[in-house]
């Protein structure tokens, strides 16, 4: 049991990193990876929302969609509805409860609705047939993997400010190439903890 959970974490963070090998969450990955501080903030916020979403998705799936046989056609709509509301709810709550926390990562919350990692995780959970704990860990791992990707990229991008990147490659192009190299490196983990 514990081993399974550990494998889920390893898999989501390293082997099947959502950014580098599952191709999810690229918009925020490109958008907020220019500074390490914002990257950490965005990573934290996403991880938080992801974990909550994983739980919510699990409940919706097992108590509404599954029993009524609605999965094939209502899954997408209901998940996105839940995610959007959840994000907004969290944003409002954080702003009210802890303005300091809000300043730390609240500004990234609205960006998360359209982060496809969240939706991706929600959709993958029923597909993988995870139970509640596994789902939570899966969401958490996905968030951590995303954070890792974001932090690595932001560190490199901060260094890039001091580099002499060719004019045509400035902006997203060099970020893609760097992401490509990172993805190449992450391939080194293939075969690790097969899932």
């Amino acid at each position, binding site marked *: 049991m514990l081993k399974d959970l550990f494998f889920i974490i390893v898999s989501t963070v390293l082997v099947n990193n959502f950014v580098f090998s599952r191709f999810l969450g690229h918009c925020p990955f490109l958008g907020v990876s220019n500074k390490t501080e914002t990257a950490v903030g965005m990573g934290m916020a996403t991880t938080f929302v992801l974990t909550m979403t994983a739980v919510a998705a699990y409940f919706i799936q097992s108590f509404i969609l599954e029993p*009524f*046989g609605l999965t094939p*056609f209502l899954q997408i709509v*209901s998940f996105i*509805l839940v995610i959007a509301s959840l994000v907004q709810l969290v944003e409002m709550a954080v702003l009210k409860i802890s303005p300091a926390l809000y300043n730390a990562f609240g500004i990234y919350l609205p960006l998360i609705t359209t982060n496809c990692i969240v939706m991706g995780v929600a959709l993958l959970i029923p597909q993988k047939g995870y139970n509640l704990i596994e789902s939570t860990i899966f969401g958490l791992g996905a968030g951590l993997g995303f954070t890792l990707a974001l932090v690595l990229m932001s560190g490199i991008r901060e260094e890039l400010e001091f580099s002499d990147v060719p004019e045509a490659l400035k902006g997203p192009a060099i970020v893609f190439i760097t992401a490509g190299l990172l993805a190449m490196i992450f391939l080194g983990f293939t075969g690790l903890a097969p899932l």
Partner: protein
Amino acid sequence: MNLILIAALSMAGLSLVLASGLVIASIKFAVENDPRVDRVLEALPGANCGACGFPGCSGLAKAIVEGKAPVNACAVGGATVSQKVASIMGVSDVGSSEDKKIARVICQGGNKEAKLKSDYRGVKSCRAASLVNGGPKACSFACIGFGDCAKVCPFDAITMSDNGLPSIDEEKCTGCGLCVKECPKFVIALTPKKNEVHVRCRATMKGKDTRDVCSVGCIACKRCEKSCPFDAIHVVNNVAVIDYAKCRNCMKCVEVCPTGTISAAFAERKKAVIGDKCIGCTVCAKNCPTGAIQGELKKKHEVNLELCIGCSICEEKCPKNAITMVRAGQKQESIKACNTK
């Protein structure tokens, strides 16, 4: 049919729960947010130059709304922006566009004119060079010429000439003053935009010493002082200084300066043109400091263009608004057009 019903109802139920949750939350967690901050921010130029002393435009917008900064704190935006901000804030604008200042370079000692005293090697930055034995130029007041001002200008108004001097695009310059702060030799100053005549030297050495190191330096000969009809230029501490309040852009001093230290667009010097409204009241002729206007009483007066120095006193004094100042470079047609206005 049954399935459709279940689906529709579950969706409706789900969205009802979520929407009500959101509504409750938005009531419960309602936070006051001053919408004026966003509106002020929108009104500001958005250059984030920092000339106001706040961290970027958003910082200033917040400060203005909180009352920590005046509505005209943005020098860059000038009158239009401060008016907009004032209307958002609901106060009357206190700034006026009359005294708009822009940056001007007050040194002409480029590579050709100013001598070097040493062979400087190192970081190509004026400030860095100035820290090495006062810089490579023999005149310790001279522009060093590595273009720190051009680098710092957020509006791309400054370019470095081939001669190693900055040239400022007066149209692009907003008068934010960042270059003035940046220059280690203080050879950029904010001057009133309307003033056209400037002493482009601030070397306070004796005339002879200045001449030794620079061909366009002020040698304190005082000829300008003597020539000025308005007492607007004086030699102070071995260098000529213009009192911008008194200067009328007549360029008399430019004519007499032996070194070309005092600069102005001499080719575009203004000339008075008397239009048809002239009733020959002689007020202009009486006030002209050079006697350039002649004419008989009750007859249209004539301007002797040779003598006219473009000081525009006549224009101000004329009770009939019959006199217009026209740039010498402008074409005859436009003069005619002015005549008939």
